[in-house]
């Protein structure tokens, strides 16, 4: 099935669309009972990633973000519209490769590749008036300069590598306040309490919807597959906030009915997997897809393309602009379990907490080859999970589809070992 306008597309878009189409078809067609409310998201990705349709965005200036550590509320408050630029296309990964060293993070390469296409880059959000590039992981930090070469106005948001110290907290609050001033210059609109308040209300509504979805995934038997949730959160990157929230609320309603009816989205006794590590971004949902094709179900995730982006919610004690900006800064820094921090005991604790809450049987730890921070944390996370008696499969992969064969073998072996272990435990009196 070739879409009508494929021949009019410039050659390079063709391959990108092909890749997205193959992935989306797999995501949709290989699973029989997808929730009806997911149709919005499937259609959205089909239109944006495959037909290359330009998203109708409000005329306000577009602010690109290369990481979750960018306070979106400030962008909405000054009347601009944020779009998350992290990209998952293998096609852009290859284009971006000539900016980056051989063994480096595919996500950064793909992002650079997409930015190389300027306005034609998918998802098409039109001209980017500013790109905010927080100095979180090294390769992304260095990519900032390359984006400037491409002619973008890049704001380097200084982000501390430590989050426990007082100095780091103040340093981050100052850099967020400075960022807010730059935003005010960009749009010429002043940051007032009313605007910031409304912006926070919009994102809070979205976060509330996500939390409802997140809590529903605790159901056993699980009511929704991980790949759908990843699609939903990936849509948050570029979709209109209100439409996204309505769609998620509809999905949550439908899932609640499923939970009531005791519907099982995955196979019987499917191993419940907690997904962590480098963020899966459409169309690179390879690993979650392989897990769920092999009969597992991703019940929870601790990645910055989903849970870490939307889970924690800010609180404001006094509704004065200065304190609202500060609490936003705290909200992005303190709960974050990103591996770029010096210590990762928060992340280990968070993983154990998620495993306990979601009754996960195993953890799949994805690390893009070349992403040292995740690769290095594999050891400590592995040790903690091992002590807790939770099996973990460490997968080092990148955007190329050619290792799907090997990965599927490993994942199948991992899931089988979980199944036999569960059967054994069930057979021998089922003690935990």
């Amino acid at each position, binding site marked *: 099935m070739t879409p009508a306008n494929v021949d009019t597309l410039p050659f390079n878009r063709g391959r990108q669309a092909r890749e997205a189409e193959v992935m989306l078809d797999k995501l949709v067609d290989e699973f029989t009972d997808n929730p009806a409310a997911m149709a919005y998201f499937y259609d959205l990705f089909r239109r944006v990633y495959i037909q290359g349709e330009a998203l109708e965005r409000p005329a306000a200036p577009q602010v690109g973000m290369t990481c979750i550590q960018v306070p979106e509320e400030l962008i909405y408050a000054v009347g601009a519209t944020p779009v998350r630029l992290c990209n998952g296309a293998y096609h852009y990964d290859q284009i971006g490769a000539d900016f980056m060293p051989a063994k480096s993070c595919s996500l950064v390469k793909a992002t650079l590749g997409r930015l190389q296409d300027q306005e034609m880059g998918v998802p098409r959000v039109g001209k980017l008036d500013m790109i905010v590039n927080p100095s979180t992981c090294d390769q992304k930090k260095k990519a900032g300069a390359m984006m400037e070469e491409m002619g973008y106005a890049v704001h380097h948001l200084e982000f501390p590598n430590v989050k*426990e110290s*007082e100095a780091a907290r*103040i340093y981050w609050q100052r850099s967020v306040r400075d960022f807010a001033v730059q935003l005010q210059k960009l749009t010429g609109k002043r940051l*007032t*309490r*009313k605007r910031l*308040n*409304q912006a*926070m*209300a919009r994102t*809070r509504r979205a976060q*509330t919807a996500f*939390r409802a979805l997140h*809590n529903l995934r605790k159901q056993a038997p699980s009511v929704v597959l991980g790949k759908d949730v990843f699609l939903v959160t990936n849509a948050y990157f570029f979709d209109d906030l209100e439409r996204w929230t309505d769609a998620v609320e509809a999905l949550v309603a439908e899932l609640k009915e499923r939970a009531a009816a005791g519907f099982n989205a995955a196979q019987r006794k499917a191993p419940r997997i907690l997904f962590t590590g480098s963020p899966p971004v459409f169309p690179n949902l390879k690993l979650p897809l392989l897990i769920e094709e092999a009969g597992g179900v991703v019940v929870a995730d601790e990645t910055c393309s989903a849970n870490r982006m939307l*889970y*924690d*919610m*800010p*609180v*404001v*004690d*006094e*509704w*004065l602009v*200065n*304190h609202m900006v500060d*609490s936003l800064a*705290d*909200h992005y820094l*303190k*709960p974050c379990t990103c591996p770029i921090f010096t210590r990762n005991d*928060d992340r280990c*604790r*968070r993983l*154990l*907490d998620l495993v*306990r809450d979601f009754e996960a049987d195993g953890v799949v730890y994805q690390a893009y080859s070349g992403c040292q921070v995740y690769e290095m944390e594999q050891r400590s996370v592995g040790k903690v999970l091992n002590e807790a008696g939770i099996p973990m499969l460490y997968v080092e992969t990148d955007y190329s589809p050619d290792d799907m064969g090997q990965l599927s073998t490993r994942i199948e072996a991992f899931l089988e070992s979980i199944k036999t272990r569960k059967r054994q435990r069930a057979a021998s009196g089922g003690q935990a």
Partner: protein
Amino acid sequence: MTSRLRRAVDNVDLQRFRFWFQAAAFVLFVYGGYLAVDLGNSLPMFSCGYNQEGRAGVCYLLPLQHQLSRPWPQLFGWAGIGVLTGFATFFLWFIVLNKGWCGFMCPLGTLQDWLTSLRKRLGIRYSLYGEQAFNRLTWVKFVLLALMFLIPLAIGGGLLSHDWGAPFCQICPGRVILPLFTADPLQLTIDYSSIGTLVLTGLGMFIAGLFLVGAFIKKRFFCFFCPMSALHYLISKPALLKLKKDGDKCTKCGNCFNVCDMEIRAIADDLERKDIMTDDCTLCLKCVAACPEPGALKVEFARINIFQATEEGFLKRMNKGAGHDACKR
């Protein structure tokens, strides 16, 4: 408790509840005297004894300092029993609400909260101490507590003259400001009759001025230096009302620290301790109201869980807080 009642309690708008509770306590303890209410003179918060007609009971520090300044042979003799019974009454009052007395009942605390809400309405930013200043200043209240014991004992021993009587009361802003609420300006003076009274009443007036500005700029400014809070903490182990934290459920989002009037870091950073109330805490429970993680922070009265953090409650309060204040501007 039935789950419906529990949900209703957990979704309470704590800000509104606490405002009215404090207002009622303020009227009771500052004007109760006119209604012939007399709760004795061992109350664990600043129901100031100098507010002669209006007071509904006397803050325990005043009689304590009087009793301690009795001559030693008496104090360690037959008068000692008076001191012990006074302390026992104070202790019984205290264990009921633990430091909730500071957060909910103390008129001086309520006054500071009103000054804070005035500042909020005027749109003026609050100040923070910062970690270093906090760690240094957290000791001041224990120094004041020690002085409050030593000076009266010195009087009893004849080392100091009686002009140093009730030393803390003379420098306490409560003595100067609370009687103003019953139109009694008698305390607004400097007493030149002796060195002791000159220094103390001078300090008292200066601190009263400092208190007004401090409480306006910094939330619960005086509670940070208050010897009563130090005394409370020393005997808070057997108290009934307790603030409990479950470290496993905490995602260290720092919301509790963000809303804490007393700027206590341990509430957000300490994951091991179960009984999380520190010496500065006033049990105002704003942290429990601001916690999105169900069951991470909860308040127990004699081990019965009476108020705990829930997601639903958090969202209701945040939306209300946003809506509530947004329409103001």
